[in-house]
């Protein structure tokens, strides 16, 4: 066979592969947007569910997810950023730092349902927080820790070495150098990672199954020790556990969840783009 014909065929096959990845994404989005739009109005977004979730809104689930995500970030961001600072600024190439990196890789790979088991074992039962926003937030926080650490590491590593040398040579201490000459310039990257972590936490179901999520709780949580509904779990419940839920309520819930997650990702992408454009070193 002619080599150029062969090349043409090969390229077409590869192009087809790419289409097979991307087209279904668009199809999924299109289906959910078209079918979900009709369910969404102000009352759907602001009212509590009624009549066994067949009617009313999904406000408690939206609010619950926001609480959980916020809690997860409050826990994971300080810990993740400090951890990245340790890896980039303090640790030297030795056994301990290799072990830390291996641990991070494995945390990123632990199945989400195992995080759920862990959260149940340690937060719900051992620390006796019960099934609560606190337990769920901490579990989600640990789950997104690798995302935050990895993004923060990349952000810190992208700050030129010269900034550190200049600051130290002016008599600043190591921490002052990190605080004033490194962190401010790594901030956009850390923020991007944080928003990606938010998106991840907002969409996860398995870690909150046994740690916080309530099946049907048509009132709002009042403290961090309360259970709460959450969007992804709500979608699971009304798709598989409760018969007779109108289709547009299910699609509407899926659309709200999808919009929340995609907007967070979009924000991260825009932020990253803006940052790269503005960067001057």
């Amino acid at each position, binding site marked *: 066979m002619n080599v150029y014909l062969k090349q043409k065929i090969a390229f077409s096959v590869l*192009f087809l592969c*790419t289409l097979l990845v991307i087209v279904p994404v668009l199809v*999924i989005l299109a289906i959910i947007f078209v079918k979900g739009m009709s369910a969404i109005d102000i009352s759907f977004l602001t009212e509590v569910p009624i009549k066994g979730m067949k009617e009313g809104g999904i406000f408690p689930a939206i609010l619950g997810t926001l609480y959980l995500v916020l809690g997860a970030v409050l826990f994971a961001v300080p810990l993740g950023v400090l951890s990245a600072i340790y890896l980039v600024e*303090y640790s030297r190439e030795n056994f301990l730092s290799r072990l830390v990196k291996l*641990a991070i890789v494995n945390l990123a790979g632990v199945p989400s349902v195992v995080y759920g088991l862990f959260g149940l074992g340690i937060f719900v*039962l051992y620390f006796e927080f019960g099934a609560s926003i606190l337990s769920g937030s901490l579990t989600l926080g640990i789950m997104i820790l690798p995302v935050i650490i990895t993004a923060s590491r990349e952000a810190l590593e992208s700050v030129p070495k010269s900034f550190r040398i200049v600051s130290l040579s002016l008599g600043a201490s190591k921490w002052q150098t990190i605080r004033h000459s490194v962190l401010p310039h790594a901030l956009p990257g850390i923020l991007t990672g944080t928003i990606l972590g938010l998106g991840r936490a907002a969409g996860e*179901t*398995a870690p909150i199954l046994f740690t916080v999520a309530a099946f049907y709780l048509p009132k709002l949580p009042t403290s961090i020790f309360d259970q709460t509904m959450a969007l992804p779990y709500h979608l699971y419940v009304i798709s598989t556990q409760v018969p007779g839920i109108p289709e547009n309520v299910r699609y509407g819930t899926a659309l709200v969840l999808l919009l929340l997650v995609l907007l967070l990702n979009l924000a991260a992408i825009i932020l990253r783009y803006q940052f790269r454009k503005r960067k001057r070193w």
Partner: protein
Amino acid sequence: MDTHTKIRKIKEFIIERLIFLSGIMSIIIVALIFAFLLKEGLTLFWQVPLSDFIFARNWYPISDPPQFGILPLILGSVLVTAGAAVISVPIGIGSALFIAEIAPPKTKEIMKAGVELLAAIPSVVIGFIGMITLAPIIKSVFGLPTGLTALSGAITLAFMAMPTIVSIAEDAITAVPRQYREAAIAMGATKWQTTWRIVAYAARPGMLAAVMLGIGRVIGETMAVMMVTGNAALIPHSILQPVRTLTATVAAEMGETVQGGEHYAALFAIGIVLFIITFLINGAADLYLHKTKK
């Protein structure tokens, strides 16, 4: 040293201890996860021998007496995972090659954004769509009593593995030094010959790592698989039967167990199995990634 400096130094000492503690926190958390899984799960093995747990053919956790053989669940996971790998590996590697080597820059950016978009969709949403659109198609095409089968699970999970495979394989392909390509082209190879024989060959370890991480993601995936595979804890004989995976079992049954009971411990024991499997896969993939970088 003046007092201002002294106070600052004490503050910095505390902050630096805190940084060190946070730095090793990942190790502590991995150890804690394993410890708590063992704490809750090991009690099962006072009653059920390990070999029965893994090789017995029946998972009847609430019958009397209960039977805790996870072989059907392991086979369910293996079947779904293998199916997902068969679909996602060629497609994923193919599109990684296309995006990294062939696509013009603008198209490349759009395609990468598409892949990121896929990665961002929550698994419960993918499961929902799989259940509502894919399952009926499978049901009518194969004339089955239900569309919730291992095949539906494999197809759904293939999509969840693809972003991982594409993005990591693409990184590995892009990291192949430019000189390799130039040398091949200079010797008269076509672009395709260069891409396939030289670039793909050089990027093999990275692509292998990509595949392993993709499979790691599939084995651990819970919600989507629970929604589309039909959840029958039987030893599967065909990919067109309903199956139940390890992850789905834990997620579906934990809510109904008595805390501290046998069933409860058995689900944690499944957690131990999952933890060890993913630990090995991710550790191995990481080794390969480091090999590529060197």
